[in-house]
């Protein structure tokens, strides 16, 4: 794909805004890491060598305890296996950095969860009130939240861009009616309706996305309408029209490329918006069903167990870091597309 000189210039400008550029790299790395989260934070071992055979249990089916000479049929507890093999010297086990998965309850004798952070137990941020590792829940929760937001964004923008540019380009009665509909839609208290609906059907990730999409498509539609409306009356559109370009050509080859900056500069804010919406719903208990790791659920646990401060503080700090970084990206993108050169007085 050949990028236009303008786009190259904008990318260069974006890179020159250090705060935003580094946040962008950091977020990309984090998202990439969530894709291999099973290799970093998991109760299954990365690698087991036992009696000359090599095993890679991370992906793939359950390996029963009997395989490694243990006295049970269900899935091997690799943390215990590591100790056993070390003692007997029959093989080695390499565990991930955090050897817990987000769903397992780590109950130990004489310890009542939540337990405080300890690097000896490898619960680096402690456990929550049912003994699940906080790091694991935070990280897997982040994975769900970010991909939820991304998917929601794609759906929202598809609707927004197509309906919005149709409204701006066609105008007339269609525009009038859609304007009224959007006005009504955006006046409905979103959280109210989500709560009403979510308290009846226990939502899964797709129904939840459906509900959010149902109430979230207006913002982008409105933006695109305004942009198309403005672009339509510019000279280049008129020129294209007088040269005999078809409607389709005008929209797709002329107007859309020129309004792409609106879409791009809204992306970071939509992502943080999606994360926040999902977290709020989870916090109130109307979000994803129970054992799913999520920030909102951790926040809820944290506020219910304020004496176990490590839960609240780790979620809040992690949330601040991620959301502020996303905001930095958003601000940098906006500045790259629309540089405002201010005069400052000494």
């Amino acid at each position, binding site marked *: 794909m050949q990028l236009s000189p303008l786009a190259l210039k904008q990318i260069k400008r974006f890179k020159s805004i250090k705060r935003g550029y580094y946040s962008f790299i950091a977020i990309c790395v984090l998202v990439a890491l969530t894709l291999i989260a099973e290799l970093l934070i998991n109760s299954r071992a990365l690698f087991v060598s036992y009696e000359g055979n090599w095993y890679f249990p991370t992906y793939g089916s359950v390996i029963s305890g009997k395989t490694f000479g243990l006295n049970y049929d269900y899935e091997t507890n690799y943390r215990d296996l590591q100790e056993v093999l070390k003692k007997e010297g029959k093989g080695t086990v390499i565990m991930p950095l955090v050897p817990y998965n987000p769903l397992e309850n780590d109950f130990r004798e004489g310890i009542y969860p939540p337990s405080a952070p300890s690097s000896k137990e490898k619960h680096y941020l402690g456990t929550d009130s049912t003994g699940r590792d906080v790091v694991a829940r935070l990280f897997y929760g982040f994975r769900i939240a970010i991909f939820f937001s991304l998917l929601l964004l794609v759906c929202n923008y598809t609707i927004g861009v197509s309906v919005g540019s149709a409204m701006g380009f066609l105008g007339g009665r269609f525009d009038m009616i859609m304007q009224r509909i959007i006005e009504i839609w955006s*006046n409905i208290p979103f959280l109210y309706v989500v709560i009403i609906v979510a308290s009846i059907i226990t939502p899964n990730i797709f129904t939840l996305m459906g509900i959010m999409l149902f109430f979230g498509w207006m913002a982008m539609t409105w933006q695109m309408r305004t942009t198309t409306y403005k672009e339509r009356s510019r000279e280049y559109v008129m020129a294209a029209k007088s040269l005999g370009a078809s409607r389709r050509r005008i929209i797709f080859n002329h107007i859309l490329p020129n309004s792409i900056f609106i879409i791009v500069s809204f992306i970071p804010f939509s992502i943080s918006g999606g994360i926040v919406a999902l*977290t709020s719903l989870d916090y109130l208990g109307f979000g994803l069903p129970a054992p799913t790791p999520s920030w909102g659920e951790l926040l809820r646990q944290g506020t219910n167990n304020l004496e176990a401060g490590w839960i609240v503080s780790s979620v809040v700090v992690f949330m601040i870091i991620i959301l502020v970084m996303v905001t930095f990206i958003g601000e940098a993108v906006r500045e790259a597309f629309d540089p405002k050169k201010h005069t400052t007085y000494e």
Partner: protein
Amino acid sequence: MTAYFVRRVLLIIPTFIGITLLVFTITRFVPGGPVERMLAQMQAMGGEGGSSGGGSSSGSDVGSNALSPDQIKELEAYYGFDKPVFISYVLWLKKVVSLDLGTSTRYSEPVWDTIKERFPVSTFYGISTLILVYLICIPLGIIKAIKHNSIVDNLSSIFVFIGYAIPNYVVGIAVIYLFASYFEFFPMGGFVGDEFEDLSTWEQFKDLLHHAVLPLISYVAGSFAVMTILMKNSMMDNLAADYVRTAMAKGLSFNRAVVRHAMRNSLIPIATSFGNNISVLISGSFLIEFIFNIDGMGLLGYESIVERDYPIVMGILVISSILFMVGNILSDICVAIVDPRVQFK
């Protein structure tokens, strides 16, 4: 101009009908409505207590199990659930027009009275937040613009960014953990303390403030960032404008140029949202009220949804949507007042 505003006011009516019709329909089609909820409660209470619930006074000879179909019908008729959606919507609308919002199914008292009780709490927080936000944002925005890229600017930017990125209830959770649980400077929640009645006026005032500090921090954190950025940006635009340069070229000092010329014009964008402030009456965020256990409008709305108290849900919706739409129009009027160049057609 007058014609424009008259048209805007008239447009409130169809929009209002659209909003309320939509929510009304949703409340009708979801299962677990007030009647079913009441039946479930009666079953839970068992045969003895069954007759005390709700509108059925015909005794409980049916036994511990649910009411007879006739009685259920009676109940449904009592709450207006027996008619088709559209007819009962029209009936509801007729009552609303005559300023009757109906009766709460949970408290069995008029919706208006229930809502009215919560006004003082929400208005207190609404107005204090409003004043604090304007008091902080306007000066801070101006200082940040004048001292662009200085230490003051960059340091305050940290708070602005955090406030912008984080939803206000998370700020609430953070401060409640830090200042109420860990350091115990402030109470964990509530609007006033338990022994509020017994205190002298001065101590009552102190108690109220003591309880209000943390919620106010979270309310202000939610809205000061946007306002400060807006103020700073418009101030910087104006400082760079030719007319300020002209004023200074003609010998005006920098301070006077800022105060007399740039500042007045920079306030215009702030005015665009000024009219929406009439929503402070019911502006309680239910997440913040939920966290701090403040008995305001937000919490009332949340509880009435969870408890399926639809008359209250609809009542709050009526008030908030009208205030919101009137607020939008007021905002436009404010813009027209502060900036004579603006023409609405």
